[in-house]
């Protein structure tokens, strides 16, 4: 209704209009999409959260209090350290601090528990000197964003694992692997999807039939067993880096089908649009039609498709690694971290092992919200 009426709007002369109205008339596709996207509140909230995640990924070494493989043998399965502002005597300090921890063994159940040792106080500082690391594998650095000055002190914000490694640091490093895995995977997926979908849609005929049947075939095999089969086929002797790229390829090979279908469908419908014929009659070459008319028209659909596929890839990688078929330690990814949480007994006593799962859930949700927002904004001309 509103759209139909909207068509009949008469643009006023530019000079009679206020600034903001003027901008609607000359707003490009991306501006219109942004205005529509802005109306999707959840997506708008998700964006800064995802931005924080990306900051963590980029500066993982600096933001982590410890190194991912650094073992604190005294603190195996240590629970998350409590941060205090008020000490045991009731004195308040502006600088938060942590207490030391000592292990006690219950004489009846032989369970090990940690209790706070209020005699040792470790104030928390920003930009503390700690274990040396190589930022982005390039620069030797010692400064950590947050930490305590005493190197041996227990400062584990989300606890430690069975070997006494800091879970928060490992999760930060893991995000880098898991998200970069998804992003690189998407790049390959887009390449495969664009090329195969593009060929299928633009040329049609027998090529189209072959590609479409191939997609049908790939789609009717259940995804997880297919991933597992392909992952199991990777040689055991490969280095972690090779395995990593091998896995990325596996995901792209399985995942390009959806995008290829979108690309093909859009191309087929756009080829029939009057404006494509008008461009041809105007003397536009094939290259110009593809680059000026077709690509801009479905670029937004590709972006949405990509945004929606990222969480799928994250979950896929996590599932495979969780099952022990994907990335292997010493590589740290979210799935690898969750392997520790496989045993129910472990979980019951050390629930903090699920922290990586929290990261996964939040990330996937945020990507899905943004995908929703983009989908609403995809075609601002409807």
């Amino acid at each position, binding site marked *: 209704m509103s759209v139909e009426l909207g*068509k*009949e*709007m*008469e*643009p006023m*002369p*530019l*000079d009679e209009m206020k600034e903001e109205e003027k901008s*609607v*008339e*000359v*707003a*490009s*596709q991306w501006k*219109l999409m942004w205005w529509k996207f802005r109306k999707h509140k959840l997506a708008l909230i998700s964006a800064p959260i995802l931005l924080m995640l990306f900051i963590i990924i980029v500066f993982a070494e600096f933001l982590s209090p410890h190194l991912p493989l650094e073992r604190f043998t005294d603190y195996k399965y240590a629970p998350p350290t409590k941060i205090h502002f008020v000490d045991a005597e009731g004195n308040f300090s502006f600088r938060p601090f942590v207490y030391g921890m000592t292990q006690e063994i219950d004489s009846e159940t032989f369970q090990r528990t940690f209790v706070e040792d209020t005699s040792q106080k470790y104030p928390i500082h920003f930009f503390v000197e700690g274990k040396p690391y190589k930022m982005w594998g390039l620069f030797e650095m010692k400064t950590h964003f947050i930490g305590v000055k005493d190197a041996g002190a227990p400062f584990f914000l989300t606890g430690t694992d069975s070997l006494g490694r800091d879970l928060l640091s490992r999760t930060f490093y893991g995000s880098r692997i898991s998200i970069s895995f998804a992003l690189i995977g998407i790049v390959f997926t887009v390449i495969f999807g664009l090329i195969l979908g593009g060929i299928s849609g633009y040329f049609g005929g027998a090529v189209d*039939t072959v590609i479409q049947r191939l997609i049908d075939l790939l789609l009717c095999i259940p995804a997880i067993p297919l991933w597992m089969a392909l992952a199991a086929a990777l040689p055991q002797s490969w280095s972690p880096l090779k395995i990593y790229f091998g896995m990325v390829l596996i995901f792209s090979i399985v995942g390009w089908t959806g995008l290829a279908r979108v690309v093909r469908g859009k191309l087929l419908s756009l080829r029939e*649009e*009057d*404006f494509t*014929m*008008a*461009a*041809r*009659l*105007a*003397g*536009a*070459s094939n290259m*110009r039609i593809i680059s*000026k*008319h077709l690509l*801009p*028209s479905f670029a937004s659909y590709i972006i949405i498709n990509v945004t929606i596929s990222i969480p799928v890839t994250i979950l896929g990688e996590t599932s495979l690694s969780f099952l022990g078929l994907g990335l292997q330690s010493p590589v740290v990814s979210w799935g690898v971290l969750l392997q520790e949480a496989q045993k129910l007994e472990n979980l019951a006593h050390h629930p903090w092992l699920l922290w990586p799962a929290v990261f996964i859930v939040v990330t996937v949700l945020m990507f899905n919200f943004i995908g929703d927002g983009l989908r609403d904004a995809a075609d601002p*001309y409807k």
Partner: protein
Amino acid sequence: MQHHNAVLEVQAMKKYFPIKKGFLKRTIGQVKAVDDVSFFIEQGETFGLVGESGCGKSTLGKSILRAIEPSDGSITFVNRKEEAVEVRDLDNKQLRDIRRDMQLIFQDPYSSLNPRMTVLNIIGEPLICNGIAKGEELKRRVGDLMDLVGLNRKHLERYPHAFSGGQRQRIGIARALATDPKFLVCDEAVSALDVSIQAQIINLLQSLQQKLNLSYLFISHDLGVIQHISDRVGVMYVGKMVEVAATDKLFSSPKHPYTEALLSAKPVPIPKQKRERIILKGEVANPANPPSGCYFHPRCLYAQDICKQQAPDFKEIEAGHFVACHMAKDLDLKGVKVQ
């Protein structure tokens, strides 16, 4: 060219679309969208083409520009150098060149403009693609075109969504005029518009015709519009041209029973006029499976045995009046009063 003053002459044009079926896409039949159509358009005239949906009038219009590749026949066009060119023999480069002289105006003012381009780029596309103008020169020429079609040249940087249907159609017309063509195919160019806007666009097309000495092939299903704008009219039915005559002649004394029925079926804005209305039986024949003989015979009030067996020839029965009907000379058909 048989007609020395013609800008375009179409002879025995055919466009058959294959019907494909099954996994292997075998051709199992043909839709004869345009079937052996011949006509010509004179310099500076408007040739109206009227018919019901599916009669092939749009396909015919687009085939002339080779926007759709015709299956058979000949299209002779007189280009700007006054040379008669066979359009069907042209290669891609020559085709691009001849399309500077013949252009198309689309029906739908929404889908015919790329919503992601500014008006400057839409109207300027033919100029850019043919290497005619760029930069400031492009802006100046597009601005001139916008003045010509009654748009404000200040709106160069706007996108199509900022314009109403009528204004978008003006953008489409400006684009078609960019390379200074001499012949335009108007494919239902005013059908999607409201009455008051339709009148604006018809007036614009007529004034442009006089200013720029254009020839039009004006395709429409609306007899009123056709009557108003055309010098001569062709009537199509299921891929065939059934009648061609000067507008007044065709409307006042049609020679084909289908034309008579069309004229009679059109609702006239004169209330309670008791007319002997001819209401045809059935619907337009399926061009994939047309009836035998004359395609119109199952619906025709005057059909004889011969009509079922033999397809009629398209003959000139009076000077400039062509009809495809066995009974053309025997029937006394009713037209409408021409004002």
